[in-house]
Structure formats: C-alpha cells, structure tokens
C-alpha cells in the first residue's frame, strides 16, 4: 500500500489503472493514455499532481537564502506571484532536484519540489535554512491539480465566482495569484497553456468533479510523461540527477552566472564545467519504426559498439508526431546523424533541438 493523494478514491471510481510512483499510488491512465495525451493537446485535460511537495519558506532573510540555495537567481523576480524554474545543486554541481519557486511576498516564497525527492530535499533545505533563520513549512494540507490544454484556462475559470473569472484569465505565463482558497498559477509540464491549482485537500475532489463537468478529461502519469517529453522538458531521475550537472542536462538556461558576486551552492563546480567540452542533452528523432527507451546506447553514424558515445535518458512514442522521440546525453561534438542500439540492432536517429511539440504544433520536421 502506497501513499494516497486526496483524489485517490476519485481516480479509482473513474476507472484509473493505479501504479506505484515513488511510493505513491497514482493513476497511470483512465483507459487510453494516447486519448488523454490528445485531449491535452487539443482541448483540456487534468492531472492530479498532489504527490508533489509544496513547501513554504518564510523569514526576513528568505530572499538571501534562496539566492544561495538555488542555481537560478530569485533576485530576477520583481513582481509578486512570479515563478522561477531552478535546480538545487550539490557543491559538486550534481542536481539534487529541479523545482519551481513563487515569489509570494518580501518574506515568503513557495516552492514545489518532486515527490520522489521530497525527503532529501527537505533535509537539504532545513540544513541550510538554519543559517538564515528561514522557516520551512511543507504544505501537506494542499492538493494540486494541473489543468492543461488550449481550453484549460477557460474551463478552469468557469469554476470561479464571476468577479474572479476575468482576473484569473488575465494571469500572465509563469505568474500565480490567490483566488479565494486556491492559489492558481499559469504553469505546467505539457507544453500547453493552462493552470496549476493549489487547493485545500478537502476541496480537491469537488473541484475535480466540477472540472469534469466542464469537459476536462482526467489524464494519468502516462500521458503526463509523453506530453512533457514532446515539450522537451526534463524528468528528474531520468534526464538529470546527482551525477550530472545542469550544463550537461539541457538546463544551462536555468543557471544564473550573473551577477558574478552571487555565491550559490554548486557555482564553483559549474564554472569549471563551463570550460570543458563535455556532454550535452539533446533531442532524438528515430528515423526507423520502433521505440526509443531510456538507457539505450547512442552511437555516431557508421560506428560499431566500440564507438559508444551516448545514452538515451528518456524515450517514448510521440502520439503527436506518430514517431519515437527521446532525450539523450551525447558528446558535444556529435554529428546530427546517429544510431541507437535497440535490443541489439542499430537504428538510424537524428539529433534535433527540443521541444518537439509546443501548443499543439509539431516543431520537428519528421520527413
């Protein structure tokens, strides 16, 4: 028996296939993962992401604390409600976790970290928070629902009282704000527009039911994975972990080296890594039929197994492109034409620049 979110019974009633995900009993799909994927690309789908850990950080020195703790710079956040994506690093530069942090007030930031890394994240945050007199409060009382797709915002707004509807629709991308007992943010993990709603656990099942009445389709972790991979978004534990730094994980854009006088955990290691050729995370499009999967070996074109060069970190079948796609870690010097070892046979693949799909549109030429 695993941990259960406040929506567990709702999922079971709606016919979800339940699987273990990092110790949580979570819905994999409610019948067809591919239909759920298309619903998000074409209309609106909803995911229970209550297993993720919301943690409130508060104190007079909280900004100073986060500027030291995170590789991205919360100093960039100028308006309340604005969100920032960042890695939290070890001194070695290895990624402890990736997360989103919201600027709630001068003395309060809200962070959302991964479910599977919850305990080690909290231990790490606590350890450093002491020096800054920052209070760390995990919010187990909150559930979280991600509503994603071209019609997601409109269908979510319909649940709010009329005076709040216009305001929630005016939220800019990567901004959040409170609406009654909810905190609504225009963020997500699918490459589509939409909201992530943090909501008191006791209200979650009711909100889920009302979203269902609006025609929002329940979607499981299976669709969440194909959607995020099409969107070129990393999954912690697959595409990066403590053994890899952000620069070799497609996350250079999340590291704020400027201003130069900001000290943050991992900075020294990353400055060294910047000077090395090293590896990078790239997108792969399989030219043949078949499915790319994590841990498959990537070879340069014409090479045999002796010329091992890289590895698939996440692979799947892309329902939008009707082809297999992947993220892979390869030497920076790699040529676009590569081969992937799938069950002992070499298949032609092409290095491409993620995202593969954004806002319902294919961005990769599959011809």
């Amino acid at each position, binding site marked *: 028996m695993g941990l259960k979110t406040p929506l567990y019974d709702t999922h079971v009633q709606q016919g979800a296939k339940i699987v273990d995900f990092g110790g949580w009993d979570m819905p*994999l799909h409610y019948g067809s*993962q591919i239909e759920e994927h298309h619903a998000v690309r074409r209309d609106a789908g909803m995911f229970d992401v209550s297993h993720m850990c919301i943690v409130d950080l508060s104190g007079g020195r909280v900004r100073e604390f986060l500027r030291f703790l995170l590789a991205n710079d919360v100093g960039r956040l100028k308006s309340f409600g604005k969100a920032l994506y960042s890695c939290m690093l070890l001194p070695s530069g290895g990624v402890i976790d990736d997360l989103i942090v919201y600027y709630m007030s001068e003395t309060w930031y809200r962070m959302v970290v991964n479910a599977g890394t919850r305990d080690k994240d909290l231990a790490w945050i606590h350890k450093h928070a002491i020096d800054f007199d920052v209070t760390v409060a995990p919010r187990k009382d909150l559930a979280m629902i991600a509503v994603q797709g071209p019609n997601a915002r409109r269908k979510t707004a319909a649940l709010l009282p009329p005076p709040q509807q216009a305001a929630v629709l005016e939220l800019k991308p990567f901004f959040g704000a409170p609406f009654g007992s909810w905190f609504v943010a225009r963020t997500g993990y699918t490459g589509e527009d939409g909201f992530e709603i943090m909501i008191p656990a006791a209200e979650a099942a009711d909100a889920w039911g009302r979203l269902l009445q609006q025609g929002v389709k329940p979607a499981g972790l299976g669709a969440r994975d194909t959607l995020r991979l099409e969107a070129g978004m990393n999954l912690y534990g697959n595409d990066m972990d403590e053994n890899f730094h952000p620069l070799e994980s497609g996350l250079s854009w999340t590291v704020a080296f400027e201003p130069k006088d900001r000290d943050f955990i991992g900075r020294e290691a990353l400055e060294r890594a910047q000077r090395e050729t090293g590896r990078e995370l790239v997108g792969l499009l399989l030219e043949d*039929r078949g*499915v790319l*999967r994590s841990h498959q070996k990537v070879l340069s074109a014409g090479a045999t197994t002796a010329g091992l060069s890289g590895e698939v970190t996440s692979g799947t*079948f892309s329902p939008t492109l009707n082809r297999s796609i992947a993220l892979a870690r390869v030497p920076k010097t790699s040529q676009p034409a590569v081969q992937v070892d799938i069950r002992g046979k070499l298949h032609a693949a092409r290095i491409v620049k993620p995202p593969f799909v954004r806002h319902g549109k294919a961005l990769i030429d599959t011809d």
Partner: protein
Amino acid sequence: MSNNIPGDLKYTKSHEWVRQVQPNGAIEIGITDHAQSALGDLVFVEVPDVGRTLKAGEACAVVESVKAASDVYSPLAGKVIAINDVLASKPELLNEDPYGAGWLFRLETGASANAAALMSASAYETFLAEESK
C-alpha cells in the same frame, strides 16, 4: 481489467493465445485480452520473418506500448508461414481486437509440437486469478 477469454482457443502462461487454423497443424498466434490491457496502448509491433524456424518458448516478436516493450514467445515449435503486415501501420489493432484483426503470426507446427502443454480457456482463467493474488 479487461478479461475476455474465448473458449475455443488455447493459452500460455506468458499470455499468448493459439488458434488451430488447419487440421494439419497450422496455428495462429496472438496476445490475450488480458495482455493487451495490461500493456496499455500499443504503438509498435515487430513480428518474426516468414520462413523462420522457432523453438517452443523462443522469444520471436516484440509488442511495445507507450509504457514498455514486451517479448512474445512462440507457444509451440514450428515454421513461420504468415505474418500480420497490417500491424506495422496499425498496432492499435492489438488493443481493439486481440483475438481477431490483432493476430501476430501463423506457424506450421511439426509432428513434434506438444500442443498438450497449452492451457484451456478455463485453465488460463484460473491461472490469471492465481497470478493476480
């Protein structure tokens, strides 16, 4: 969990079904309704080449869902005489019609093929019930 088990077929513990298509020993093979349901949406199928000789229990085909790849094992020894080409472009037939349009390949079984090792529908049903405990 979807669980249709036609009474006129034989079954394996690795969730293949076997249909006798000719009295002289030609059989048709596919994966069961239980198997397709457990795998989820199928997106890729690789079947053996026509003419290949298979041993009983030999891994000879691959079915991949969005989730994972799974081997299919030949229920009996024999030679591949036909394959379902349509699956290359329509792997979803395995989900939609696992005992019909979703068949995988046909084998000509020799005299040595031991059909008695296969399970009846009722034995397979009991096996599934045991497996899910």
